[in-house]
C-alpha cells in the first residue's frame, strides 16, 4: 500500500502558502506577454540572427525505407556560396550515438544526427550550410544519393511479425518495448462477471498538434570559448542538453540554451536534439553559426507525430447492475522509425490505468514497435489520451450493448467524491474531484434533455439527418514522477520531478523573476508575476518575469521545461518558494534597518514597514541599496546572510515506483475534463456537424481562470480537429499522404464550434497552491465525438472503432451490415 498522506510539514506549508495567495492569484488579469506579441515584437526562432551565419538545409530521404549505397556532395560543394556539407557517415565519426531510454534489445540502436540508412520518408541523410536559404536548398538538390529501396512496414501490429522488414538490423527485430501490466485479478473478474463484452479492435490514429511555428535553431560552436550557443524553440532544453553533452563530447557548461518566444509546441518540439547536434557539427566544421528553420512540409514529414495505438482483443467484465470490473487487452503502439523520446509512452499511459473509473482488474499486454514512419513525439495528452479514448469507447460500448443509460453507467462507475484520495490499481493517487457533478455540469451546458428531445424529433422527420449526443470523461495527469521511466528500463537514473526559479530584488528595488520552464504560449510571465506579487506585496505589473528560457540564468534543474501539465504546480511553486525566500531576506534587512524583529515586517506596495506603520518604513529601493551598494551600514551577520537573489527548487513528494510490480504514484495531480456534445450526422454523406459543445474542467485552484479557460478551448479545438479532420496516413510503401496543410487539414475558425465552458475547483491536497496542471487536457473531444457518432448510429450499429472519423468512414459505418466488431457473452 502506498502511503499517500502528506507529511505534516507539507500540510503546514500548503496552508500557509494558500493564505498568502489572495490578492492577485486566482484573478483573470490580462497577460503581460501579449503586448509584444500583438505588436509583432515577439522574438521567435527565425527572428534570431548572428554575424556570419549560414543557412542550413537538410536533405531528406524521399523513401520510406532504403539503404544508402553512396552519397556524393561534390556538386553541392562546388556551388558558390556553399560553406559546407556533411553526410551521416562524417557526423558519425565525430560524435557518439545518442543516449537511449529503451532497455535491450532496442538499447542497441545506434542513432546519430544524420541517418546512415533511410528509415522513414523525411529521414535526414545530409546537410548543407550556405550563404542564403535559397542557395542551401538549391545545393541540397545537387547532392546525389544512391538509394536501394527496401520494403517498408507501416503498421505497428504487423511490425511485430518476425517476417516483416526490420528497420534496425542491430536489434534483429522491430521491438521497441514489451511488457505486461497486470493489476488485480482479471481472470477472476472475467470468470465471475455476469457479462463479458468483447471488442475486436480499436484504433487510435496518428496526428499531431502541428504548432504554427515550426522547429528551428541557430547554433554557434564558438571556436574561441568552445561553447555552443543554441538559440532554439526546443520545448525541453534540459532533456536535450543531457542527451547532447555526451554525444558531442562536451560538458554541460559548454551548452548554452536560450530562446524568447516559441510559436506553440504541444510536445512536438521536445525531440529536436538530432537536428541541433547536426547544426553544432556543421557549425564547427564551417566555423560559422548555422541557422535552420524547418519548413512546414519538413515539419509534417519529420518533426514527430503523436502516438498511434491499436488495441486488440479487449474483454470487459461487467456485473448485472452495470459495475464494470476492468478490462484485458493487447496494445500495440507505433513508435515510428526512431526512439527519440519513446518508449516512455509505454509507461506514461499507466498514469491513468482505470481512467475516471473504479476499475479494479486490469491486464494490458503492451508492445511498442518500430515502423517506417516519422518518429513519435509527445503530443498534447501524450500517451494518456489514447488510453482514455479507449476506455471511453469501452464504457460507451458497454452502455450500448447492455442497454444501460450512458450517463448513469458513467456515474455508477466513476470514482466517487468521497473516494479521494483514491488509489488506482497500480498505486497512482487521484488527488481530488467530483466526477458526477462535473458530468452534470457538462450535460447542462448542452441542455441534455432537450438535445435528447431534438434527437427524437429529427429521427422521425425523415430529413436524412440524425442527432447524436456524446460524452467524454478524461483526466489530465500532471507533474509526473520520472521514476516511472524505471518501469520501462530499471537502469535509468531518474526519479521524482521538480523545477527551479529565482526571484531577486534588483539594485533599484525592481523585482525580477526567472523560471526554468520553457513556455510556448501558456502565459508563464503572467501567472508567475501573480503569485510573486502576492508574496511580495506587489502588483503583477511590478514583477518582471524573464521571457522564455535561458540556461545562463541558472534557474533550472534536470527536469526543467514545459511539458506534462506541470507549470501550475512545479514552476509556480518554485516561484512561490523563491519569492518567500526573498521576502524573508527583505524582512531581515528591513528589521535591521528599522530596529525591529523580522516577524514584525510587513511588505506592501513596494515598502517594508514595522507592522504597517508608514512612519517606520523602508522602500524596496532602500533595502536593495543596503545590500548591493551600502552594506557597511548593515550588521555583518545580516549582510553576510542575504543576497536578494533567491533561488528555490520545488520538489514534489514522490517515491521511486517498483519496476517489478509496475506500481507507484506516477503523477501528483489529476485534473478532470468532462465534455459533452451534440452532433448532426448526414445520412447521405457521412458528414458530421457539431451543433453544441460543452467542456467542463476541474483543475483545482486556478491561478488565472482566463488562461485556464484558454487552455480548455485550445485543447478542445485540437481534439475536434483530430476527431474529424486531422490524420497522418502512410501508404504501404511508407509515403506520407498528408505532408502539407493541403492534405493535413488543420482546423480553422469555421470548423471549431463555439465552445461553452464551465468549471469546478477541487483543490489538490498535494500541491502547496492547491493547483493542478491542466494544459494538455485529456483528449476529451476525441472520446466525446466518437461517442456522439455511435449514439447517432443507434442500436445494433457497427462499433465506432477508429478515433478519426472523416465523412467516408462514417458513411461506411452507416451502411455497414457485416461484423459489428463487438459481442457480448452473458452468463
Amino acid at each position: 500500500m502506498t502511503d499517500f498522506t502528506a507529511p505534516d510539514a507539507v500540510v503546514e506549508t500548503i496552508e500557509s502558502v494558500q493564505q498568502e495567495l489572495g490578492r492577485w492569484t486566482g484573478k483573470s488579469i490580462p497577460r503581460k506577454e501579449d503586448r509584444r506579441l500583438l505588436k509583432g515584437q515577439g522574438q521567435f526562432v527565425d527572428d534570431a540572427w548572428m554575424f556570419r551565419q549560414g543557412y542550413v538545409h537538410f536533405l531528406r530521404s524521399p523513401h520510406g525505407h532504403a539503404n544508402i549505397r553512396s552519397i556524393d556532395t561534390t556538386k553541392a560543394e562546388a556551388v558558390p556560396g556553399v560553406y559546407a556539407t556533411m553526410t551521416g557517415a562524417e557526423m558519425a565519426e565525430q560524435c557518439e550515438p545518442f543516449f537511449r531510454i529503451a532497455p535491450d534489445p532496442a538499447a542497441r540502436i545506434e542513432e546519430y544526427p544524420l541517418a546512415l540508412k533511410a528509415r522513414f520518408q523525411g529521414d535526414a541523410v545530409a546537410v548543407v550550410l550556405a550563404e542564403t536559404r535559397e542557395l542551401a536548398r538549391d545545393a541540397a538538390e545537387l547532392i546525389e544519393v544512391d538509394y536501394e529501396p527496401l520494403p517498408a512496414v507501416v503498421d505497428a501490429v504487423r511490425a511485430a511479425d518476425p517476417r516483416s522488414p526490420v528497420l534496425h538490423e542491430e536489434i534483429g527485430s522491430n521491438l521497441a518495448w514489451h511488457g505486461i501490466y497486470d493489476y488485480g485479478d482479471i481472470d477472476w473478474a472475467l470468470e465471475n462477471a455476469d457479462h463479458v463484452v468483447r471488442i475486436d479492435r480499436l484504433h487510435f490514429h496518428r496526428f499531431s498538434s502541428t504548432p504554427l511555428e515550426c522547429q528551428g535553431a541557430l547554433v554557434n560552436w564558438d571556436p574561441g570559448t568552445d561553447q555552443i550557443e543554441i538559440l532554439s524553440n526546443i520545448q525541453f532544453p534540459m532533456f536535450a542538453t543531457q542527451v547532447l553533452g555526451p554525444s558531442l563530447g562536451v560538458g554541460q557548461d559548454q551548452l548554452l540554451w536560450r530562446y524568447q518566444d516559441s510559436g506553440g509546441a504541444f510536445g512536438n518540439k521536445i525531440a529536436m536534439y538530432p537536428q541541433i547536434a547536426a547544426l553544432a557539427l556543421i557549425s564547427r566544421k564551417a566555423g560559422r553559426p548555422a541557422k535552420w528553420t524547418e519548413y512546414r512540409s519538413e515539419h509534417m514529414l519529420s518533426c514527430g507525430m503523436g502516438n498511434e495505438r491499436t488495441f486488440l482483443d479487449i474483454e470487459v467484465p461487467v456485473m448485472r447492475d452495470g459495475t464494470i470490473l476492468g478490462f484485458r487487452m493487447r496494445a500495440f503502439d507505433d513508435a515510428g522509425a526512431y526512439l527519440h523520446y519513446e518508449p516512455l509512452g509505454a509507461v506514461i499511459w499507466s498514469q491513468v490505468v482505470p481512467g475516471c473509473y473504479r476499475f479494479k482488474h486490469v491486464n494490458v499486454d503492451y508492445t511498442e514497435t518500430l515502423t517506417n514512419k516519422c518518429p513519435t513525439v509527445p503530443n498534447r495528452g501524450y500517451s494518456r489520451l489514447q488510453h482514455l479514448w479507449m476506455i471511453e469507447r469501452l464504457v460507451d460500448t458497454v452502455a450500448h450493448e447492455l442497454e444501460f443509460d450512458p450517463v448513469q453507467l458513467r456515474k455508477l462507475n466513476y470514482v466517487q467524491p468521497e473516494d479521494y484520495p483514491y488509489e488506482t490499481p497500480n498505486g497512482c493517487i487521484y488527488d481530488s474531484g467530483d466526477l458526477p457533478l462535473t458530468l452534470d455540469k457538462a450535460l447542462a451546458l448542452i441542455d441534455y434533455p432537450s438535445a435528447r428531445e431534438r434527437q427524437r424529433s429529427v429521427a422521425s422527420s425523415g430529413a436524412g439527418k440524425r442527432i447524436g449526443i456524446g460524452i467524454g470523461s478524461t483526466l489530465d495527469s500532471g507533474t509526473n514522477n520520472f521514476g516511472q521511466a524505471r518501469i520501462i528500463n530499471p537502469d535509468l537514473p531518474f526519479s521524482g520531478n521538480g523545477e527551479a526559479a529565482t526571484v531577486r530584488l534588483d539594485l533599484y528595488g525592481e523585482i525580477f523573476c526567472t523560471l526554468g520552464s520553457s513556455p510556448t504560449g501558456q502565459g508563464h510571465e503572467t501567472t508567475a508575476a501573480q503569485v510573486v506579487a502576492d508574496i511580495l506585496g506587489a502588483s503583477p505589473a511590478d514583477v518582471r518575469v524573464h521571457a522564455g528560457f535561458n540556461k545562463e540564468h541558472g534557474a533550472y534543474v534536470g527536469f526543467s521545461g514545459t511539458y506534462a501539465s506541470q507549470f501550475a504546480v512545479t514552476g509556480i511553486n518554485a516561484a512561490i518558494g523563491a519569492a518567500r525566500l526573498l521576502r524573508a531576506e527583505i524582512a531581515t534587512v528591513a528589521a535591521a534597518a528599522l530596529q525591529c524583529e523580522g516577524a514584525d515586517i510587513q511588505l506592501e506596495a513596494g515598502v517594508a514597514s514595522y507592522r504597517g506603520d508608514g512612519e517606520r518604513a523602508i522602500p524596496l529601493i532602500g533595502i536593495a541599496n543596503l545590500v548591493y551598494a551600502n552594506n557597511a551600514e548593515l550588521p555583518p551577520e545580516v549582510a553576510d546572510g542575504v543576497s536578494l537573489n533567491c533561488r528555490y527548487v520545488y520538489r514534489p513528494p514522490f517515491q521511486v515506483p517498483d519496476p517489478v510490480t509496475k506500481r507507484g504514484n506516477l503523477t501528483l495531480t489529476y485534473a478532470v475534463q468532462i465534455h459533452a456534445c451534440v452532433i448532426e450526422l448526414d445520412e447521405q454523406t457521412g458528414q458530421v456537424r457539431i451543433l453544441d459543445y460543452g467542456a467542463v474542467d476541474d483543475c483545482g485552484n486556478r491561478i488565472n481562470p482566463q488562461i485556464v479557460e484558454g487552455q480548455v478551448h485550445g485543447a478542445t479545438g485540437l481534439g475536434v480537429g483530430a476527431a474529424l479532420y486531422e490524420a497522418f496516413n502512410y501508404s504501404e510503401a511508407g509515403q506520407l499522404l498528408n505532408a502539407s496543410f493541403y492534405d493535413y487539414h488543420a482546423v480553422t475558425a469555421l470548423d471549431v464550434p463555439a465552445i461553452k465552458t464551465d468549471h469546478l475547483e477541487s483543490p489538490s491536497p498535494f500541491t502547496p497552491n492547491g493547483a493542478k496542471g491542466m494544459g494538455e487536457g485529456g483528449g476529451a473531444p476525441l472520446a466525446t465525438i466518437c461517442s456522439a457518432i455511435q449514439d447517432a448510429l443507434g442500436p445494433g450499429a457497427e462499433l465506432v472503432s477508429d478515433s478519426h472519423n472523416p465523412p467516408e468512414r462514417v458513411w461506411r459505418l452507416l451502411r455497414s451490415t457485416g461484423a459489428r466488431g463487438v459481442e457480448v457473452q452473458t452468463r
Partner: protein
Amino acid sequence: MLLRAVEYVRPDSPVEAIAALRSSRHARVLAGGQSLVNVLKHRVAACELLVDISRIDELRFIDAGQDGSVRIGAATTYDELDRSSQLRASHPRVAEVASGTVDQQVRCRGTIGGNACYNDPASNFPPLLVALGATMRIESADGPREVDAEDFFFAPFETAVGTGELLHSIVLPPLSGRGVGHSSILLAQDSWALARACAVIEANGVVQDVRLVLGCVGPAPVRARAVEDRLRGAQLSAGAIEAAVPAAREGLTPVSDVHASAEYRLEMAVVVAQRALLQAAEHLSA
C-alpha cells in the same frame, strides 16, 4: 518554401503579355498566384519566366450586358466577383461560389481565369462554367478565339489555352429564367471538395433543357448526359430528379486519395447531383 530561380516580368497589356509568353520556352502566366506559387515552392514544377498579368486593367473587369450576360476579365478576383452587385443580380450563384472560395486572402488574390486554367479537379469554377455554357475568350499572337467552356478543360493544369496564349475573359450567357444549383461535399468548411455538381435547368413545368456537370470525378468537369437525357422532357419534380440521378455514375473515373476512395466519390457524385438539381429547381420556382 523557396522557389527555384526564375525570371519575372509584369507587362502592361495583354499584347505585351503574349509577347512575353512567346519569348521563353517555359513561360507561365502568373495571375493570382494562389496555386502556382505554392507549386513552385515545392519544386515539383519550374518555369523560366513568370508573366504577371494581375495588374493589367484590361483583364480586370465585370461587364454586364443588356441581355443579362456578363463578361468577366480573366484577372478578376473572387473577391471582386463576390462584391459585384451586377453579378449578384445577373448570376447570383456565381457570386456565391466566389464567396465560398477558400478564404478571404485567397479571394483577394485568386482569379477566375487562374481557377479555370489551373483546372484542379476539385476546383469550383470549372464545373460551374461548363454548366452555365460560358464562352472562354483566348488571345494569342494570331488574334482572339473563343472556346466553349465545355471544350476548354482537358486535364489538371491543361486547358485549351496553348503555349503563348492567354485567357482573356469569360462570358456568362444570360440565365434567361434558368435555374442554377450548386452543391459540394467538402472535407471541412470551405475546404477540399470530395464531390461537386452544378446544374442549370430550363423548364416550364416540363424540363426544356438541363445541364448537369460534375467535378472531382475525372480529369476535367464531366457532363452527366445520362441524367440530362432522363430529365429532358420530363415533368420537373423531386421524384423525377431522384429517379434520374443514379445515372450520374456512368462513365465517371474518380481518383482515390487520402481523403476519400473513388467509390465514395462516385456515390457522392449522385448525392451532389441530386442536391444541385433540386436547388436549381427551387431557384427556378423562386
